[in-house]
C-alpha cells in the first residue's frame, strides 16, 4: 500500500494555518513593532493624557488600567477581523491560494477553518503584545491574567469567522467598509472599551450586549484587573454562539463562491 497522501480529519486545517503563519513569520519584526507601538501610543495618549483629566477612577480602577484591558479585547477583534477580511480576500480572490489548496486533498472546509483559526491566532498575538506592555507598565494585577491568552484566541476566532462570512460575499475590498463602519467601529466605541456601558441609553446598552465584544470584555477585563469574574457562562455562551453560527455559514458561503 502506498502512503495515504492526506492528513487525518482533525488536523487538516493545520497546513493552512501554517502557511499563513510562515508568511507572517517572514515579516515578524515589523509586524510585532506595529503590534507593540500602536497600542503603546494609545495607552500613553489616552491613558495618561485623557486619564489625567479624570478626577476619579473609572469603574473602580485608574483609567489607564481600565483602558489597557479594554484595548486588549478591541485589539483581538480588530486584528482578527482585518485578517479575515482584507488578507483572506487577497488569498481567496486575488492570489487564488484557496483554490490552489483545494486541488490538493484539502477541502474547502479545511481551508476555511484553517483561515478562521489563523485569524483568531493573529488576534491572540495582538492581545498578547498588549498584555505584555500592560504588564511592563504595571497595569496587570496578577498571574490570573494569563487566562486572557486562550480567551483572546477564542474571541479572535469568533471575529475571524464573522469576517470570513463577509469576505465570502464581498465583491471587492471597498465592501468591507460597510462591515467596519456599521459593526466593528460601533462595537469598538459602544461595548465598554473606553468607558462603561452602564452610562449609555438603554437601547444602546441592549445593542452592545447582543454583540460579542461586550462579552469579550466581560471575560477579559476582570482577569487583567484582578477582579471577580461574573457571568462567565453567559459571556462564553454568546461568543460560542456567534462561532457556532458564523463558522458553518462561512463554509457555506465560501462554497457558494468557489465551488461553482
Amino acid at each position: 500500500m502506498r502512503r495515504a497522501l492526506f492528513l487525518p480529519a482533525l488536523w487538516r486545517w493545520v497546513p493552512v494555518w501554517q502557511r499563513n503563519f510562515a508568511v507572517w513569520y517572514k515579516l515578524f519584526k515589523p509586524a510585532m513593532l506595529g503590534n507593540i507601538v500602536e497600542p503603546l501610543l494609545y495607552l500613553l495618549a489616552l491613558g495618561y493624557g485623557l486619564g489625567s483629566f479624570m478626577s476619579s477612577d473609572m469603574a473602580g480602577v485608574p483609567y489607564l488600567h481600565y483602558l489597557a484591558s479594554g484595548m486588549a479585547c478591541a485589539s483581538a477583534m480588530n486584528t482578527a477581523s482585518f485578517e479575515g477580511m482584507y488578507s483572506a480576500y487577497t488569498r481567496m480572490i486575488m492570489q487564488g491560494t484557496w483554490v490552489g489548496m483545494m486541488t490538493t486533498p484539502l477541502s474547502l472546509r479545511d481551508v476555511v477553518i484553517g483561515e478562521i483559526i489563523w485569524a483568531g491566532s493573529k488576534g491572540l498575538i495582538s492581545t498578547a503584545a498588549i498584555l505584555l506592555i500592560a504588564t511592563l507598565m504595571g497595569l496587570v494585577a496578577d498571574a490570573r491574567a494569563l487566562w486572557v491568552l486562550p480567551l483572546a484566541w477564542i474571541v479572535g476566532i469568533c471575529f475571524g469567522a464573522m469576517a470570513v462570512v463577509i469576505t465570502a460575499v464581498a465583491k471587492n475590498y471597498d465592501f468591507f467598509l460597510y462591515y467596519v463602519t456599521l459593526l466593528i467601529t460601533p462595537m469598538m466605541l459602544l461595548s465598554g472599551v473606553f468607558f462603561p456601558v452602564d452610562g449609555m441609553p438603554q437601547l444602546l446598552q441592549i445593542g452592545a450586549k447582543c454583540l460579542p465584544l461586550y462579552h469579550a470584555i466581560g471575560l477579559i477585563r476582570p482577569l487583567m484587573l484582578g477582579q471577580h469574574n461574573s457571568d462567565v457562562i453567559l459571556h462564553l455562551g454568546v461568543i460560542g454562539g456567534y462561532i457556532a453560527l458564523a463558522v458553518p455559514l462561512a463554509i457555506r458561503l465560501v462554497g457558494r463562491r468557489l465551488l461553482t
Partner: protein
Amino acid sequence: MQVDNAVIRAQALCKSYQGQRVVDNIDLMIQAGECFGLLGPNGAGKTTTLRMFLGLTLPESGSLTILGHPIPAVAREARARIGVVPQLDNLDPDFTVAENLRTYASYFGLRGAAVETRITQLLVFANLQHKTDAPIDTLSGGMKRRLTLARALINDPQILILDEPTTGLDPQARQMIWQRLRELKQQGKTLILTTHYMEEAQRLCDRLAIIDHGRIITQGSPDALIQQHIEPYVVEVYGNGVQAASLADGSLPRSARIEQVGETVFIYMSQEDPNVMAMCQRENLRFLHRRATLEDVFLKLTGRDLRE
C-alpha cells in the same frame, strides 16, 4: 478488444450556468498511461470539465469515477493521486520557489527529509535549481509555468491534469515543457491536457476529444481524426482574394473543397495535384502546399467564427 484500463470514466456529465449548458453530456474514458487532449474554442467547457474531475464543480447529472473513486463523493482520495497545473497561475507570491513546493507538499501531509529530496529533484526537472531561493515575482512566465508543473508533481501523482500548460510561452519554453511531459508519460503517468495549440496536441496526445458548446464533437487519435475528417492535401493561396478565388473556376480537381477566409484561399484535395501549383505560379500568387493538420480538422468542425 482493447483491455479496459480506464483511470477516468465520465458518463453523461452535464453542467449549466444560468440555464446555459456549458458541459453537455460528456462521455470520456481515459486509459492509464495515455496522454489525452481536450481541445475546443474559448468557452467550450474544457476548464469546467477538468474542475469536475477535481470535485471543484459539481456535475448536475452524470457519473464520474477517477481511479475507482466516485467523484465528487470521494474527491479527496482522488485528488491525493492527481497533480494539477491550473489555467491561471496561482503560485504563492509570499514564498520563494522552494518554499512554494514545501508549502504545497504540506497540503498533502508531506514533510521532512523526503520532501526536501523531492524538491531538489523537481527543481532540477523543471530547470529551476538556480532559482531555489528566488521570490515568485522575479520569475519569467516560462519559469512560473515550470514551477507550477514541478508543484503538480510533489505528490508523485498518477494522473496529471494540465489546463493550457504552455499558453503564453515562447517556443523555447514550450519545447521544454513538451519534453518534460513526454518524460512524465514515459514514467507511466496519465496526462490530461487542454490546449489551443493544435501542433502541441498533435505531437503530445495519443488521443484527443474536440469539444464545442460543451459537447464532444469527435474523439480519436490525431492521425485518425485527420484521416476521418479532412482531405490530406492543402494548398493555401494568399493575396488578392478575388483573383485567388477565380482559381476555383474549372481549373481545380472536381473533388477539391475551397474555403476562403479574407484574403486567403484554402484548397483541400484528396490527392496532390501538380496543376494547382502550376497555376498558382502562372498567376504569380504566393502559396503554400502542405499536408492537412489537426488545425484543419479543428477549424472544419468548430467553424472559423470568433467566439465570444
